[in-house]
């Protein structure tokens, strides 16, 4: 009798799960955005999700859950059920939480649904800065040690990675690094002259560059961007960068590991369609983002490589709190 009950209950439970997966979604899906409203992660997620909803046939309710550079949102989703009803919408930086001492979880606890797009970094300067390109800036730093104010957004942020790259290629730079809480405030400060140079994602700076409010020094990539064809890629100034580039921040949608495969498949299909949507593509392109639209193993490989390269770059620059080795992040090429 006892066995029968257990069997019946488990059959019911199993039946319920399969049924739930087959007609997923049966209720509202929560989309937890790691960053604040109006930021780049927020705008990307809010522009792609309505297209994905069309395919999904359900509603994704988007919520911003900010704090501790996104760790609060990540921990929230990691603590929710792995049923596909809680999505994590984030950027690249959780891959650095472990080495930066910001948390003990990263994307390895999650399955990527879609890595939507990737940004390219650009070095921008105040319009009155006494140099016009990357070479001029390096010359200025050499002639005026400790005078150049370089914007930063805290350890693990895009500027810290770009600065680490510059130091690994050019040797130690005698500059003042002024921290801001985000690239928006830092780019504002750049226009007001509080800082001289800022490594920023192209999408955040492109309109101000077009408007002549800041000047681009170099694209941090191996080739010029078709958005700013006149700006040389940094590899033309120093070939040493070609081993480190292309590199860029990215945006992705994730679910917790252990989510049923067919739910993952359905979400993957929906977000892939969203990433291919014409409106979304032209929106991203206009802002200088490159569409990636990666999922499955391809996405997983991308995450692994990105994490290895970036974590070790920061480790070699002496910026990490703990060595990548401790977390089993292999050195690139090993």
């Amino acid at each position, binding site marked *: 009798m006892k066995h029968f009950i257990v069997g019946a209950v488990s059959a019911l439970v199993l039946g319920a799960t399969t049924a739930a997966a087959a007609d997923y979604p049966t209720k509202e899906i929560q989309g937890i955005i790691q960053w*604040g*409203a*109006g*930021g780049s992660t*927020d*705008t990307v997620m*809010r*522009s792609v*999700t*309505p297209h994905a909803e069309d395919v999904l046939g359900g509603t994704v309710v*988007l*919520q*911003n*859950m*900010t*704090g*501790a*550079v996104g*760790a*609060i949102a990540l*921990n929230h989703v990691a603590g929710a059920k792995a049923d596909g009803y809680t999505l994590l919408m984030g950027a690249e930086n959780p891959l650095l939480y472990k080495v*930066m001492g*910001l948390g003990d979880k990263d994307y390895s606890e999650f399955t990527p649904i879609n890595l939507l797009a990737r940004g390219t970094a650009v070095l921008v300067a105040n319009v009155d800065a006494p140099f016009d390109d990357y070479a001029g800036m390096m010359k200025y730093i050499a002639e005026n040690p*400790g005078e150049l*104010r370089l914007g930063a957004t*805290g*350890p*693990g942020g895009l500027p810290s990675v770009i600065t680490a790259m510059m130091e690994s290629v050019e040797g130690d730079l005698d500059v*003042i*690094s*002024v*921290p*801001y*809480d985000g690239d*928006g*405030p830092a*780019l*504002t*400060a750049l*226009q*007001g*002259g*509080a*800082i001289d140079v800022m490594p920023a994602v192209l999408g955040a700076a*492109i*309109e*101000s560059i*077009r*408007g*002549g*409010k800041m000047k681009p020094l170099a694209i941090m990539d191996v080739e010029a961007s078709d958005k700013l064809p006149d700006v040389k890629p940094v590899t033309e100034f120093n070939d040493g960068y070609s081993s480190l580039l292309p590199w860029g921040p990215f945006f992705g949608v994730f679910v917790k590991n252990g989510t049923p495969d067919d739910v993952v498949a359905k979400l993957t299909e929906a977000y892939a369609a969203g990433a291919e949507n014409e*409106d979304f593509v*032209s*929106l991203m392109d*206009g*802002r200088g983002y490159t569409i990636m639209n990666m999922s499955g193993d391809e996405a997983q490989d991308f995450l692994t490589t990105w994490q290895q390269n970036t974590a070790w770059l920061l480790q070699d620059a002496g910026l990490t709190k703990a060595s990548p080795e401790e977390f089993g992040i292999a050195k690139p090429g090993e």
Partner: protein
Amino acid sequence: MDMFLAFLTVITQPQLLLLVGLGTFAGVYIGAIPGLSVTMAVSILISFTFSWEVYPALALMVGIYMGGVYGGSRTAILLNIPGAPSAIATAMDGYPMAQRGEAGTAIGVSTVMSFIGGFIGIGVLALAAPFVSDFALTFQPRDYMLLAILGILLVGSLSSGSLVKGIFAGALGIAIGAVGRDPLTFTERFTFDLQIMEGGISFIAVMIGMFGVSEALLQLHHVDKTAVKQKISRIVPSLGTVKKHLPLSMQTSTIGVIIGALPGTGGDIAALMAYDHAKRVTKNPSRPFGDGAIEGLVAPETANNAAVGGAFIPMMTLGIPGDAVTAIMIGALFIHGLNPGPMLMVDNPNMFWFIVGALVMANFFILLFGLTGIKIFTKIVEMPRSVLIPLILLLSIVGAFAVNNSVTDVYWMLGFGVFGYFMRHYGYPLGPVILGVILSRLLDDNWRRAIISEREDLGRFFSGIFSSPLSTVLLLAVIFIFVSQTPLWRIAKTRLFGRTGSN
């Protein structure tokens, strides 16, 4: 001519006008409920209006923004619970008025003053936006730091009783604001290795607890008392009253526009600074400040609505948000395929004039919705306390949860509510705590930025201050306001002028 037509778009297309009206109406109520914030409403609207055209979407958002900033004053006056941070100063004289049965007058004055302040903000936006945004950009980290110090000196005017207790409360606020991962280096501060402390303490949770819950607890003492009967015969203030306060409202609106236009400061700081300014310049207030002075309503209400126009200035001219709400609107423009940035005014000047038009109409709607339906609102305060107190507690819990969908915030809110009750009980003012929390980050981040920029050299730091006229003026203002609050100043003043000064 084109620009005039763009300005009129909102009137010539009835559905846009309707949306502005709808937005303003919703905004007044969203603003009035503590915790339901305009920021939240506008970010929900981004997804909601995704498939709409850009004009209707913006019309709704502009309405909600304008209405929400005004709406915060409602609950501040009626219940002593500011519906939004920008209404904190409004509660200080608005609530005493409601206690005297003058809630109708208080709401009437704050509505008309919000309208005037709103117009001055919009006027500056329409006529001088590029000039003001250039000025706002010249603020360096050291200037923001001096501005924060100037703000902290307001502790004096926000503490009704003992100044020492006020300073203690302010310092506590600054410490609360510093909890969590430091945003510049991500180092943990005051977290005691607890995960819930890592994200810091939500400022809104502190505000709702300190004002909402502590007020409810305090009211429990008088649960049997019958509520004050409200006189609502005279709601629209007389022309004489408006005229009398016009000079003050011009000054406080100017404060509002400038503070609003600065990226990083918004209506909350503007309203508190305006309140302090009113206290300083008003020689003979209608009643002492803190007891229901009309001037104490005029100042914050003009300033916070003027700050709305101010916040649009850097947004429209440079694509830089003036506050949290305009940051989301920039996102909305982007999603609708526009490119917010310095080229927006050049490529798409109609957008600018459309927003100015929508703001003007939203401002008129405030007058309409603000001066009607007051009867129902005043009924709220006339409710028996046994109904009102649970209602306040319920709103506080819902509000605290809604800010970040986090139960932790509810615990913080309740904790600070009980703490705030005891603070009030022992005569510690709560205003300075909130002031401290608001200014904590502004002061801390900018001091560090300023000194790091000068290679951690105090000599270079001060020579930087004296080489910039703006920094010098701000430093002198700090020194003047500080000295004018010391006994030394009073003695000097008596010696020089042979009579006691009014402060």
